[in-house]
């Protein structure tokens, strides 16, 4: 982040959109690029903070994640699992053909 020229251009937007699996119409790419640059420029002020001896904080709970025994707790709900699927067949989710 210290390198502020690492800022987003249209090829970067294309790359990030691809990673995000988002179709972005050509017409909105310039606006999106500007928005991302403004936001990334704003968050860049974190550079001012000295964090050399600071550990990252991922969770504020203060407790260890609980473990449970590795046992099946439900099941036999195939109908419920598939109920909201846009397309299903014979107990499976259906997707477009994948040919590698």
């Amino acid at each position, binding site marked *: 982040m210290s390198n502020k020229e690492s800022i987003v251009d249209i090829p970067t937007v294309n790359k990030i959109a691809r990673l995000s699996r988002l*179709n972005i119409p050509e017409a909105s790419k310039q606006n999106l690029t500007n928005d991302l640059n*403004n936001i990334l420029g704003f968050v860049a002020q974190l550079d001012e903070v000295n964090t050399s001896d600071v550990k*990252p*904080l991922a969770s504020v709970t203060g407790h260890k994640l609980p473990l449970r025994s590795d046992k099946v707790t439900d099941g036999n709900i195939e109908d419920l699992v598939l109920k*909201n699927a*846009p397309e299903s067949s014979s107990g499976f989710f259906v997707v477009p053909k994948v040919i590698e």
Partner: protein
Amino acid sequence: MSDLLKFDLLSASIALKNKEFSSLELTNAYFEAIEQTSALGAYLEIVKDHSINMAKASDKNFKNGTARPLEGLPIGVKDMFCTKDIKTTASSKILENFCPTYESTVTQNLWDDGAVMLGKLSCDEFAMGSSNETAAKGNVVNPWLKNSKMSPGGSSGGSASAVAARSALAATGTDTGGSIRQPAAFCGITGLKPTYGRCSRWGIVAFSSSLDQAGPLTRTVSDAALMLNSMAGHDKKDSTSANLEMPDLMNYLDRGIRGKKIGIPKEYTQDGISDDIVSFYEKSINWLKDSGAEIVPVSLPHTKYALPVYYIIAPAEASSNLARYDGVRYGKRNEAASLDEMYEITRGNGFGEEVKRRIMIGTYVLSSGYYDAYYLKAQKVRRLIKEDFENVFEEVDYILTPSTPTTSFELGKKQDPLTMYLNDIFTVPASLAGLPGISLPVGLDKSGLPIGIQLIANSFDEPGLISTARVLERSAEFNFIADGAAK
């Protein structure tokens, strides 16, 4: 019917127990109110038959002497909570036909305690927004200054608007960076964000998992206590849920604050905060002082970095959480020749602009080469922000701040995403530290819009937060009703 709308959650509960009216009568009064205020657009889904059945069951329990804590009280539910067999869209086009096959823990807790569900309330899409304008089906209107079309705030804008308009006795909300407290402030009601871990996140549409927390939006502080009593509790289905008993908050309504220390952080009186808010902030400080509290100036030096940290961490977590909307298992699908194209078109069409912006930011800060510079850096500064609070809570019991830098604004007036983000400048720090906060109305500004003041407590001190908020509430005597409220 208008008489029944005058009761708040607590007084309605007492009146129901005394058989002054039935839950069915109360519920029907709310359906009339919903109709009367429908132009506000707060409700996405009304479930009248379901509500009537619940109300009748409640009336039976009153008759049999088996009434539960929220028996017969009609409430609204933010559309972020999964409700079994009732459409749950998170105000997004991508979920427009999603009908959960399960119930969120928090709403189940409310139904188990006897509450009656009125319907689902609009919000910003996936709870991403501070004005309710990112909702796929259009914005909700604030019932205050109803002819001016003011924003109800966001993301729990539908919840706040409905409670202020008296089309719900109370409502659930979720708060990630201020989404309960900011709309509560804009709509002149009380909004409480509990400590992270108090309420189970199971069955709530995930936005930013290390920050999301459910809470009540109500007319009074006592109502918030009554409702949170039922919402909170340990849940094995949420690994971040705190295994900690919450004391009955109703025992803390009248404990006062004599001898308590209230911290006034110098970083919360910045440029750009409206004069009316400053003046009511000063009044609030004096009210607490007159009630026996000691006022202590404190410093939370990393406050200005809270928003930048938030706008890295929340989008990063969102980009990961929203990866599940792929048009395969649920939600809307747009057909395409290949699987990848299907994902891209489905997600490109199904998500709104703000959601796409945040997924893009999140993906960028998590991408190879930028992860350390953005995401890891933000997590480090998040620790410093949390430590600021820990240090201050060595010294004081509660922290008092304004809830928002301005009162509500006209819908459609703020277009720039960054300007919109600044709305949450006073609510985000406590969210990052996981602390409980409450916003309550203390007065009106010159144009007649409500002003909210925020109290922040140490982790799991909801009881003390309620006691302190009650003192402030009694001093402020905020008895105004929105001009757009049901009559």
